[in-house]
């Protein structure tokens, strides 16, 4: 009843091709954004710094991987590597050009990662599926090794740790470094994530997105109807790595402020993959839902016993957390293999039919 689209006529293809053709969705999004901009920053620092920041950063990474895996169908486990590229590129750019605006630093970091992404995407022209996934691990391991080995990347710091220099936007609002307030960091990350999500949505709903999906769904047929596999796949790798690179830069600059290459090791890649699959392959919304799920769940699980007043040793909690986490992944896959985004969609369909069951 609430969710009725009846009466909402689209009178032009432009309207029909709009981002959110259904009014309720549009309003929902606006409300969500308003909450994100005005209400969330009022929350405690703990929430901002340990939940919302990693959530936004990982959502950007998930967007990146979703473009590659969810839309273009190229399974990748190299996300961590591309994120690391972005983080280190941002560090090099920021330290080499101290006056460069942080936004440009991030863009530059994205571009560098995109180039690296293209390089490591080349095998995808021949290798497919799980073979490709394992091959992308080569990128993962090699990039981290390289960043760890070449002192130039860390400006010859002996420990190999990079730490984000303080940078401001609009003159004096610091968004990175120790003096940046959590609110500023959060809003900046929010802006980046929102813009990137919008761009991803746009990319995926036009010709480029369709050629990605075509390659994903049936690569041979796609080629036969005239889609260039090379340009499409490498393009997907480039754009995906661009996103991952920015996510890596955000991680290093906004979230932890200092990283060593290990922060982007293989488990990070898997984490992003979970987000994408749990959230929903081929869904922008899914990237956010997945990121929220994977970031929030462990924190929730970790704090749950405390909230209900149980005191369980941390190691037992950690083990049980593992078990529950695993079990929940399986549970959600069984309930809806196409991810949270699909669950959401089915929910909406039910709402539309409500009060009838179907």
């Amino acid at each position, binding site marked *: 009843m609430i969710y009725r689209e009846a009466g909402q006529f689209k009178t032009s293809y432009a309207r029909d091709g709009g981002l959110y053709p259904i009014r309720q969705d549009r309003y929902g999004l606006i409300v969500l954004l308003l909450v994100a901009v005005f209400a969330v920053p009022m929350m405690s620092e703990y929430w901002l710094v340990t939940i919302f920041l990693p959530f936004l950063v990982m959502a950007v990474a998930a967007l990146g991987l979703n473009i590659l895996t969810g839309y273009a169908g190229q399974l990748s486990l190299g996300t961590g590597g591309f994120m690391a590229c972005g983080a280190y590129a941002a560090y090099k750019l920021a330290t080499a050009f101290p006056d460069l605006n942080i936004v440009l630093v991030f863009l530059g970091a994205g571009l560098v990662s995109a180039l690296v992404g293209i390089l490591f995407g080349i095998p995808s022209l021949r290798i497919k599926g799980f073979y490709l996934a394992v091959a992308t691990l080569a990128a993962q391991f090699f990039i981290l090794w390289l960043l760890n080995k070449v002192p130039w990347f860390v400006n010859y710091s002996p420990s190999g740790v990079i730490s984000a220099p303080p940078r401001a936007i609009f003159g004096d609002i610091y968004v990175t470094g120790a003096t940046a307030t959590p609110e500023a960091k959060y809003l900046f990350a929010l802006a980046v994530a929102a813009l990137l999500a919008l761009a991803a949505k746009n990319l995926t709903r036009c010709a480029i997105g369709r050629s990605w999906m075509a390659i994903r769904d049936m690569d041979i047929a796609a080629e*036969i109807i005239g889609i260039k596999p090379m340009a499409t796949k490498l393009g997907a790798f480039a754009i995906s790595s661009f996103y991952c690179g920015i996510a890596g830069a955000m991680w290093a600059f906004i979230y932890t402020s200092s990283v060593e290459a290990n922060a982007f090791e293989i488990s990070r890649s898997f984490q992003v993959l979970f987000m994408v699959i749990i959230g929903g392959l081929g869904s922008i919304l899914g990237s956010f839902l997945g990121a929220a799920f994977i970031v929030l769940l462990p924190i929730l699980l970790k704090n749950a016993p405390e909230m209900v007043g149980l005191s369980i040793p941390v190691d037992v909690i950690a083990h049980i957390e593992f078990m529950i986490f695993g079990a929940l992944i399986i549970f959600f896959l069984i309930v809806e293999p196409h991810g949270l985004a699909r669950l959401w969609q089915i929910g909406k369909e039910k709402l539309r039919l409500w009060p009838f069951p179907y």
Partner: protein
Amino acid sequence: MSQAEASPAGPAPGEVLLKVDNISLSFGGVRALTNISFDVMKGEIRAIIGPNGAGKSSMLNVINGFYHPQEGTITYKGETRRKMKPHQAARTGIARTFQNIALFKGMSALENIMTGRNTVMAHNPFTAAVYLGPAKRSEIHHREVCERIIDFLEIEAIRKTPVGRLPYGLQKRVELGRALAAEPEMLLLDEPMAGMNLEEKEDMCRFILDVNEEFGTTMVLIEHDMGVVMDISDRVVVLDYGRKLADGPPDQVRNDPDVIDAYLGVAHD
């Protein structure tokens, strides 16, 4: 049904659009095609028939560059080529549908058809990411073209349905739509009517004939329904075990004893 050869109005008959010469193709020990030669005139509907495993689909795969024959040449629009990538072939105006439906399962019917226009659409990631402006204009423009195809194929109702959920016949229709969206000069149809009932076959024939008449699109058609083949095609090639058995107008082919022997079983009316 006597007017089989009287090609309807269209470009001057006699102009050869495609010529395959002495094509031989084998996979390991299997000879899929042996010395096949035939030509396709501009604007005609050319049928390829033959028993299962005769090499019909392989022939289409050769024409659009998916298989590379060991021998022989292909001359398309006066240009002779040997090896070509399928996407290059597509860009020279060859579109096709597939025997086993090859739609993009994760997309809606409309998106599938829009994908067919990929060869003529711009791909600039920067404008696309911003969307407003050039990308939007191009989307809307191409959307209009695709909507015309959707109207034509009478699939308005399902344009937003994910194709995976569509019944077989409609999927075939969407696939035809996707091929048409490329505005091809030559359309390769691999058993477009398999799995359809009579009514749907009639519709499909109508679509094929209309496209052929209206746009002068040349058709190469593989079909096992002899009624359809004999009724709508201008000329028929018969393949058997990778060899060419006969070639000519439907009436001639249908009475060819070799063809009856190898394929039709009984003379077909």
